[in-house]
């Protein structure tokens, strides 16, 4: 992901004006960014639910049981996934915003490729 952002930075000319074919590429990238944000948001719901079910399951197992350990490890896994998604989310939003700005500067509508 970081490499693709660097590519955008390199391609962006100082004046903010870019060639037509590049604009089309940016539009496609903006569209991918938007889809990524939507998918990430869709993932939050099952993560939220799984976490809640793990909490419920933790109430039903003994304090020293092996199942408890497995559940706590699952919970930690879910937490890490959630942190990664949040990072990806903010990165995708940043890219989407940046590309939309470039497209807008060139007098184009950023939504033409969006779903």
């Amino acid at each position, binding site marked *: 992901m970081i490499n693709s952002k660097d590519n955008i930075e390199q391609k962006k000319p100082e004046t903010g004006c870019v060639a037509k074919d590049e604009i089309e590429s940016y539009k496609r990238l903006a569209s991918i960014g938007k889809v990524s944000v939507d998918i990430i*948001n869709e993932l*939050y*719901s*099952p993560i*939220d639910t799984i*976490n809640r079910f793990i909490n*419920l399951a933790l109430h039903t197992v003994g304090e020293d049981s092996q199942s408890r350990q497995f559940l706590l490890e699952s919970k930690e896994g879910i937490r890490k996934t959630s942190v990664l998604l949040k990072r990806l989310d903010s990165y995708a939003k940043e890219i989407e915003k940046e590309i939309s700005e470039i497209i807008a500067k060139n007098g184009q509508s950023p939504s033409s490729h969006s779903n």
Partner: protein
Amino acid sequence: MDKARVLIVTDDKLSQKSLYEMLCRSGYEADIAVSVKEALRHLEEKLWHVILADIDGPDIGDLSSLNIVKEKSYPSEVVVLSSKEDIDSLPLNKRISAFEYLSKPVEDEKIISAIERALADKSLNTGKPSFISRLIHKDETYHGLVGKSAIMRDIYALIDRIAPSRATVLLRGESGTGKRMIARAIHKADKKRKEKPFIEISCGALPREIIESELFGHTKGAFTGAINDRKGRFELSHSGTMLLDDIDSFSLDLQVKLLRVLQEKEFERVGDHKTMKVDVRVIVSTNQDLEKAVSEKKFREDLYYRLNVISITIPPLRKRKEDLPFLVDHFIGLFSKENHKKIKGISEDALDVLMAYNWPGNIRELENIIERAVILDVDGTLHKDDLPEMLRESATVITSDDARGKIKDIASLKDALKDPEKVYILKVLEETGWNKKRAAKKLGVNRTTLYNKLKKYNLISDSEK
């Protein structure tokens, strides 16, 4: 007490089931509406205190219809769960006037906390007379609390709002600020509980094994010395209020048990398998930084969220000195009666001394000083001479030259304050024959604070050596 009712609105089956189970387990009456349309039908049929709307599903319907809750003044609040981080990113038909937006993934404790705050907030509209109207008369107190400063009036207003709810309350404040009095005021302000027991337990002063038995009770033979069945404080405070003082001193395993009582309202006596149900409003207090304890893993995060539904920070006396004359009047009245004396009041110069003092021991220290002055007084008015020498000296202006002469090799303010504190504690301990309860009272601190200070200064009596 009736259970608070929460209506879950979501078209996602997994979300429905997980939220329903979690809320029922946390002591709420819950039901599910699969669309906004169905939720509105539920609202027509029955009172729902909180509507918990998970708005991510595509088939939930036009959420703006839920604005009817505000428009028609339903006695309900809406709490929204969404994958989107902010309201602005929501489509227009999903933007509603909500008590709180929570973005997913969200911890159960945060949902409970939002629900409890919503419940507490609704109790605002109960049509009760304003607390300010009860303070118009000069001698009136607010459920035993003395003071009319803005900061205290804010606290009274908050108590008025939270008293009818069953929300857990976290009281923070320095030692001697009156956390116990605030807890009692919350109990007295709660119409449903005020006639029921108010039980308090000082967690810091008791060893772990005793606290467990004190809180949950025990059965005969549960441990050496358990010669009879004994009810715990939770059982004794059923239908009433329980104050857990110095909650920070709770061990981690006891924190798990407390969390269970708060969430599921059930527990077992020590040595017994029978589960007991209890309805208690729990108030906890601390003079420590609980957030720090959480970050250091000394205090459970889930318990912290559960306790921190409503937090009240009680100001130190030095920050509400305008209340000092009222407090002085109050204590003069109290101790005159107790000591069968007729004290008219306090002289201006004596009051000046009290106003100039910094009150590290807060109201408890003031209480002890007025009690002493009332006992010593001979002419019916408290004078400067009736106050302890330490107070009179602290009110004396020290010139910078004097100060320079006294302070030579002290590295910091903290170090400068250590020696006088140690010497004074030692003096009081010797006066009280090392009776820690009496010494703590005289010093205007609680016993836990005194024990901590004894440890800090390595103070032990001859008999303990």
